[in-house]
C-alpha cells in the first residue's frame, strides 16, 4: 500500500498537464471572482476578519478547482488496465485492496497539492497584507474541516466513476454534477446543493465557524425540495457532514473493490 501510494503520488505530481490545467483555472478563478478574491469579502463586510476571510477563500478556491481535481483523477484508476500494467501488479504478492487504498491516497494527495498551494498561498498573502498572524491558524482549521472532507469524497467519486463510463463523458458529467449538486441555489430545482451530501463544506463553515449567510438564515431554504436533507447547521451536524463524506468515500472504494473482484474471474 505504501509503495503504491508513493509511486502514484510521484507519477501524478510530475504530470505537466496537472499543473497547466490548475494554472489556467486559477487565472480564470481570479479573473471571474475579482474583486471578491482580492478582498475575501463575499458581501458581508467581514473581509478584514481572518476567520471569515479564510472561509471565503475556501469557498472561492473550491468553486472552480474542485472541478479540475475531479477531472484530473478521472483516468487514474482505469489507467492500469489501459496501459496493460494491471497484470503485473496483480501477480505481485500483495493485497488488491491495499493497492486500491494506496492508489486512492497517493493520487488524491498529489492532485490536492495545487489546491492546498492556492489556498495556503492566499492565506500567506493575507497574513502579510492584513498583518494578522492568526490567519495561518484559521487557514489550517478551515482547510482541514471545510475543504478536506469534500476532497476525500470527490476523490473516491472521480476515481471510481470511469469504471462505469469512459473518462471523457465522466468528466462532462462531473462538471455538471459539481454545478448542479454543489453550487446552484437549493430552490432553483431539486438538487443536492446545500444538503448534507454536498461537498462544498458549507456545513462545516456554518456549523463550526458560525459563518453567517447573506440572508441571515442559519441554514435551509424555506421552499426547496429535499429540505429534509438540510438540517440546521450546528457543530454536531458539521461533524456528521464530515462523517458522511468519509463514509461515502469508503463505500465507493468498497464497491470499486467488489467490482474488480467480480470481473477478475
Amino acid at each position: 500500500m505504501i509503495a503504491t501510494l508513493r509511486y502514484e503520488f510521484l507519477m501524478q505530481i510530475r504530470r505537466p498537464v496537472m499543473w497547466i490545467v490548475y494554472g489556467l483555472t486559477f487565472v480564470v478563478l481570479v479573473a471571474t471572482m475579482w474583486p471578491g478574491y482580492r478582498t475575501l469579502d463575499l458581501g458581508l463586510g467581514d473581509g478584514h476578519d481572518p476567520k471569515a476571510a479564510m472561509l471565503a477563500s475556501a469557498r472561492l478556491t473550491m468553486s472552480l478547482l474542485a472541478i479540475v481535481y475531479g477531472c484530473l483523477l478521472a483516468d487514474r484508476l482505469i489507467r492500469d488496465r489501459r496501459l496493460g500494467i494491471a497484470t503485473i501488479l496483480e501477480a505481485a504478492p500483495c493485497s488488491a485492496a491495499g493497492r486500491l487504498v494506496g492508489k486512492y491516497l497517493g493520487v488524491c494527495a498529489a492532485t490536492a497539492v495545487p489546491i492546498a498551494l492556492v489556498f495556503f498561498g492566499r492565506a500567506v498573502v493575507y497574513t502579510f497584507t492584513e498583518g494578522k498572524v492568526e490567519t495561518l491558524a484559521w487557514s489550517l482549521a478551515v482547510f482541514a474541516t471545510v475543504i478536506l472532507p469534500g476532497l476525500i469524497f470527490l476523490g473516491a467519486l472521480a476515481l471510481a466513476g470511469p469504471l462505469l463510463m469512459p473518462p471523457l463523458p465522466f468528466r462532462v458529467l462531473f462538471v455538471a454534477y459539481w454545478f448542479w449538486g454543489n453550487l446552484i441555489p437549493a430552490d432553483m430545482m431539486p438538487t443536492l446543493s446545500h444538503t448534507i451530501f454536498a461537498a462544498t463544506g458549507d456545513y462545516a463553515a456554518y456549523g463550526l465557524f458560525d459563518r453567517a449567510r447573506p440572508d441571515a438564515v442559519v441554514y435551509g431554504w424555506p421552499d426547496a425540495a429535499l429540505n429534509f436533507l438540510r438540517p440546521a447547521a450546528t457543530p454536531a451536524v458539521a461533524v456528521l457532514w464530515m462523517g458522511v463524506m468519509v463514509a461515502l468515500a469508503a463505500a465507493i472504494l468498497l464497491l470499486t473493490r467488489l467490482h474488480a473482484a467480480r470481473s477478475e474471474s
Partner: protein
Amino acid sequence: MRIRLSQLTKTYKGGVHALKGIDLDVPTGMYGLLGSNGAGKTTLMRILAGLLRPTSGTVLLGGHDVTTKEGRLAVQRTLGYLPQDLGVYPDLTARQFLDYIALLKGIDERSARRRRIGELLEVVALTEHADRKLKGYSGGMLRRVGIAQALLNDPRLLIVDEPTTGLDPEERIRFRTLLSRLAGERTVLLSTHIVEDVAQTCRYLAVLAKGRLVFQGDVGALVAAAHRQVWTVTTSGAAPSTGRIVAALPHGSGMRYRVVAPVPPDPSARPAEPTLEDGYLALMEAAAPV
C-alpha cells in the same frame, strides 16, 4: 518448482471453453508451451499466476493450491510473470519502475532493492538506459524490462507468455538465450507459437490446441510424431492437394514442396527427415485437419 494440473478447465463468462480438462506435469527447467492463437496458453498461464480462477480442476505449484488465498500468495512470492501484453508506466524510468515492482514484491530493504535492480539491469543489458523514461524504449528493450521485473524476487517459477513476438531476429535469439540461461534451478514456462523458440531452448514441451492438451513429452517425441509424414514433392505441375504444405521453393523449371501428410500426397513424393515444426504441424493436422 513442480507444476501439477489435473482436470483443469476454464470456461469464460461468455461461454468460451478456453481450457478443457488439462492434465499436465511440468518439471524444473525450461518447458515449452506451444499452441496457435486462441489455443488457451494465456488462460493457462494466468491461472498459474493466480490471476484467474479455474472453473474446475486442481492446480498445484510446489504443493501450493493457487485457488486458495494463502496458496496464491505463497506462489506469487516465488513467481515471476512476464505477461503477453506487457505494459509499463511511460513516465517512470526503468529504475523507478523496477523499484516500484520490487516494493510490491516485498523487497522492503532499500539497499537490497538497489543491489538487485542493479544486477538485473546488467543481466538484461539496460544499465546505460536505466535512468531514461520508459516511453522512449523500443519493444525489445521493454521486453527486457519485463523480464527484469519478473526476476526481481529471484523466482523459482518464471512464466513468460510469448516473449519473443514482435522482436527482430537478433533480439529474439538474445532473449531466448537469456531465458535458457535463467532456467537452471528454476522452472521456466515459455509459451509461444514460434516452434523454433522451443526447439532451441526446451527439452520438454506441451502442445495446446483449442483448449485441449494434444501432446506432452520431450522434443524428440514430438519430432517422432511426424515420422513418415513428411514428404518432398518435386513437380512442374499443380501443387499437391492433400496435406499441409510447409515450404515451397523453386526447383529447376518447377517447384519443390515440403508437405506434412499422413499418406504420400503424390505418387512421386519422397519421405523427408522431420523437424520439430513438422511434428507440431502433424499434430495440428491430426487434431483439426484442414
